């Protein structure tokens, strides 16, 4: 379509959108969910295709576990509810603003990355259903960033750093690192869907990563700290609770 066509539509459409966004206060930013319909269709489909094998594998594993231990389903659903609520909390950020934690880091440390992928997917579905964050067409892309890349990064960093014996440092780094990688992946997803006219994907990535860094880096630090505090508490007062979570976490 011609440039002139857009010049006209920009004036009208842009005006309407700006008016509405000024009229209504913006909501608190959610952890980097690409909103429904934002990705061009080919990319929405692409990310679904990337995610599906992981989901199928997770589903198969789950089927096997729940056949022997049906109560694992309850625990899994409760863990998903817990993760959902965690991600709906407002975490005070170092910069003074508020944002929502992802909750993926704590979950990964408690349940392991493969179970957390299933839980993460459930959480994303309910964030779309109950909070309208994210969406169904972009669920593939969001799930890849948050429920697959995030947990595995957290897990790898945690396993490596745990060997140094500094558990708190390991947890902080794992959670913050997992968060940062999630945000980086989302930026990449946006960059390849929308390459810059001058410079292509790399320039575009730099721009997306730059903008979201403003909220995501402080959030990663806050969530890392929060998780360390929670971990301390669990170890001091809830060792028994961890036992109860065994049916889920033993399947890591």
């Amino acid at each position, binding site marked *: 379509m011609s440039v002139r066509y857009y010049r006209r539509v920009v004036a009208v459409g842009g005006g309407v959108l700006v008016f509405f966004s000024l009229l209504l206060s913006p909501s608190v930013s959610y952890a980097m969910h690409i909103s429904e319909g*934002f990705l061009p269709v080919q990319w929405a489909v692409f990310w679904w295709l990337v995610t599906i094998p992981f989901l199928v594998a997770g589903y198969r594993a789950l089927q096997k576990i729940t056949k022997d231990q049906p109560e694992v389903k309850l625990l899994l659903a409760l863990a998903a*509810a817990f993760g959902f609520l965690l991600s709906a909390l407002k975490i005070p950020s170092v910069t003074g603003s508020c944002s929502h934690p992802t909750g993926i880091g704590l979950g990964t440390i408690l349940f392991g990355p493969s179970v957390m992928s299933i839980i993460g997917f459930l959480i994303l579905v309910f964030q779309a259903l109950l909070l309208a964050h994210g969406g169904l067409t972009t669920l593939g892309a969001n799930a890849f960033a948050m429920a697959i890349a995030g947990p595995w990064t957290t897990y790898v960093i945690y396993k490596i750093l745990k060997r140094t014996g500094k558990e708190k440092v390991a947890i902080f780094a794992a959670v913050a690192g997992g968060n940062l990688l999630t945000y980086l992946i989302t930026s990449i997803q946006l960059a390849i869907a929308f390459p810059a006219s001058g410079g292509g994907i790399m320039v575009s990535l730099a721009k997306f990563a730059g903008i979201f860094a403003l909220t995501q880096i402080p959030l990663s630090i806050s969530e890392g700290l929060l998780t360390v505090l929670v971990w301390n508490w*669990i170890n001091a007062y809830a060792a028994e609770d961890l036992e109860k979570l065994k049916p889920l976490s033993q399947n890591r």
Partner: protein
Amino acid sequence: MHHRIDALAYRNKLKDYPPQQKLIFALMLFFLGYIAPLHLQMVITLWLAVWIVVYAGIPWQLYAQLLTVPMFFGFTSSLALVVNINPPSPTEDVLMGLGIGPLFVYVSLQGISQALQAIVRSLTITSTMYFVLLTVPFAQLLGVMRQWGCPFLITELLFLTYRFIFILAETTTEMLTAQRARLGYTNWRRGLYSLSLVVSQLLHRTIENYREISLALLSRGYHGQLEVWSGIKRYHRGKRYLLEALAGYTLLLVATVACR
């Protein structure tokens, strides 16, 4: 906590119309929303707003607030699309620009068109999703999923998670309120500490609920699968909305094809 969408859905004025029809309508609109040109996408968005606000009776203030979710994301990421650095060659792409040292920062026409496309599409598709979320209560959605052959394990997990979210949400809100009553969020450090207590207690409470809920299920004969009977809910047979949906959709589809 904000379960507004769910609360609105179970009281919406279209809840007694067959959910299958609404879902098929939405699926068709998802498809159309992707292929329609910009101005028709705007028409779809407006049409859906009529469905949601007028027919389903969702308060317009709340609906507008919901629409800020995709807009907020859209505008933030548009910044990255619209502002560009150093055009490859002096092109038509530059709407206006500014030289800073060796850099030339400019507003890109192509970026604007990309952003506009993405935002408008996002609004259209999001409206379609909102149509489903706001007019089909969760129980009906699950019912249709079962009917359409979704694996039992998946519907079961969705069903359980949904209920548990509400059980734990109440606890969470109460704990946060109780902390505010004792001045828990006066500064960042105390705020983070308070929040860590909520998360920890929530985990503990999750485990406690697990114990009690499994007992309660056992007591009513749980045997590994959560089966329920959803009743025979009679849906409206009125044709008025069906006609509007079909007529409107055909019109939009024809217009889309004509534009291409």
